[in-house]
């Protein structure tokens, strides 16, 4: 083993003013004061927002609180296919299906609950949805409630959440990933499942609702 060499470093001597420590203190304070005044008067671009009076506009693609989209007549677009519940890694989506009165739609969710405390905001549910029925484009990033139970949001609440009206101007899609079609509000992709408009003149009566659905031997 080699002997350790010792190198002696001469410390720089402080001069007189530095030895008083007064000048560096005022130098530092002047930087703080400059930013303080600039922020106060708004003479520079602010990084902070006046939360909660002012809400930050989230960039496009930000995965906020979920919402359920609506058909033109305001009913829920979801057909309860359970793709989102199947793919969900946190197991936070609970759906129960029921019969839709229109035989061409056939199925709709009776219960659609999302447990926001369990949710990991991965966005898989949005990817999996064949009907563009669930989105996370609300821009809502503040999830709060007074009680644990209130974090489980139901179908009615999910339907009322609106998309964020405009996305941040500086938001840009990640490099190498084209923007997904159908993910900006109001447009729809041609691949999305929705029963096409059909002729009215069917030659077989559609099934009667509810009462007839119960098996007679029950």
């Amino acid at each position, binding site marked *: 083993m080699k002997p350790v060499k010792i190198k002696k470093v001469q410390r720089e001597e402080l001069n007189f003013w530095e030895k008083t420590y007064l000048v560096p203190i005022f130098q530092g304070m002047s930087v703080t004061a400059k930013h303080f005044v600039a922020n106060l008067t708004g003479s520079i671009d602010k990084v902070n927002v006046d939360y909660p009076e002012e809400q930050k506009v989230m960039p496009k693609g930000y995965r906020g609180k979920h919402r359920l989209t609506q058909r033109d007549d305001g009913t829920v677009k979801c*057909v*309860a*296919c*359970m*793709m989102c519940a*199947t793919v969900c890694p946190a197991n936070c989506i609970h759906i129960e*299906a*029921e*019969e839709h009165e229109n*035989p*061409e*739609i*056939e*199925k709709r969710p009776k219960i659609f609950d999302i447990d926001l405390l369990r949710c990991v905001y991965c966005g898989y549910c949005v990817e999996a949805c*064949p*009907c563009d029925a669930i989105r996370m484009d609300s821009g809502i990033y503040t999830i709060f409630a007074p009680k644990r139970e209130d974090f489980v949001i139901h179908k009615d609440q999910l339907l009322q959440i609106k998309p964020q009206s405009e996305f941040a101007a500086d938001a840009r899609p990640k490099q190498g990933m084209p923007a997904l079609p159908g993910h900006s509000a109001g447009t729809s992709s041609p691949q999305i*499942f929705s*029963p096409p408009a*059909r*002729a009215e003149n*069917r*030659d*077989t*009566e*559609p*099934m*009667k609702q509810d009462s*007839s*659905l119960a*098996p*007679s*031997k*029950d």
Partner: protein
Amino acid sequence: MPLIKIDDIEFEAPAGQNLIQAAASVGIEIPHYCYHPGLSVSGNCRMCLVEVKGPRGTMAQIACNTPVADGLEVQTQTPTVKKMRQGVMEFLLLNHPIDCPICDQAGECGLQDYYMQYGLYSNRSTVPKVEKAKVVDVGPLVVLDQERCILCSRCVRFCGEVTKTHELVLSQRGEKTRIETFPGKELNNPYSGNVVDICPVGALTSKDFRFKKRVWFLKSTNSVCMGCSRGCNISIDHEKTRTYRYRPRFNADVNQWWLCDEGRLSYKQLHHNRLDSALLKGQPTSLEEAVKTASKLLQDAFQQHGREAIVAIGSSTASLEDNFMLKHLLLQVNGPETVYGPNYDRWGEADNLLRLADKTPNTAGLKLLEIDTSADALEQNLNSQVKLVISLDNDAEALRKLLSSTQAKVVFLGSQASPLALGADVALPITMHAEHYASYVNAEQRLQKVSQAYFPTSEARPGWKLISEVFKPLLSAPPLYADVEDVWSILRSKYAPLANLTYYEIPDEGVSLAPKEEAEKEAVIAAHES
């Protein structure tokens, strides 16, 4: 046996088999829709096209309608065959609505499976799809979607050949062809649920199962239907601790591919009106407390009034193990046996396909255990000397009336919260067939086992376990029964037909306990008659 060659595998196949069966026996799957082993060959879906070498070169033939013959050479994986399958899939999907998100068949659909294997993966059609009726109510158990139908006619053949009720028909022609019920007819035969199982696509779906659960969430456990003494083999489809449906499981000797509607819907009793906790005169209590009370009642009756004061009533709804344990332990305590097993109210319709009049699964099991199943014998012996009656899952209203006319105390072990359970001095909850390992003997002397699908959600325990707990204080050397195999270790030593069996070695399709010669004789007679 003819020597054939499929995909360079040369083997002997039994004469009479078709190419689909022969290929399956060596592990080659030939895709098919319209062919079903339980029905006649229709040959209309064309999915099973294979290349067969003939005198005029290689030709495409449907495998389902080609019987094996000596020297047959078949290719199932050539580019031509794959192209044919792709073409057939394209035609079948031409007018299919592709509404998988709302279709109950999704996940177990023939179209989905074969599309992933052989599909074209793009759409060349430029004309709008043909529209037919959706959500057509064809019967009490079945919903029809004509658009999803690929017109394989399995359901039509089932109603024609198996039930012979002829409710369904293919009507109109060409692209307008559809499945319909005959005018004024309804698909309401007692086996109508089978058309849902045999439908390879989502055209016929179950009204009872409709939208309840996506099938990929369900797990299947092999079991036996408790609906009647036929003991049809079933799969219990369940998620966690809830059963959603029964599906028939193939057993050549019992039910073939079928299951009656009554049995199919009998899964509901697993969740309906269950006895969830132990009861003392109708009041809920802990299981330990109730078992202790039952033991005390038993001890008092035995010590104060002697052996004739105790009568046990088994049941043909309970398993072989439960009934055996009741008889075995009572015999040890009581000397001469006083176990009866009358079936009061579980009788119903029978037919010559599957259903039997005796609607309990284990009557033959009681006979095997030499338990008297006549109601008269029980009534004669229920005299004023009897101070305690132990009823194992026998909660018939007639029995309740009979017991209330005596002064005897009642210990009830059962699965249903029946009036008898609520009125009994002690009621102990026992598990049902989805919640325990047990065996049952069907009307044809076939011993079949059920497997535990999930643990009971309540305090319920297997009947044999609770019975041994109740009898424990009375026995000089209480035996330890921890597993169903422990019960079997005594069971097989007592009864000759079970001598060479262990519980876990009972095969999934069951074991026939009938003496071999007789079974053969019956088979000969049956063959002669047909």
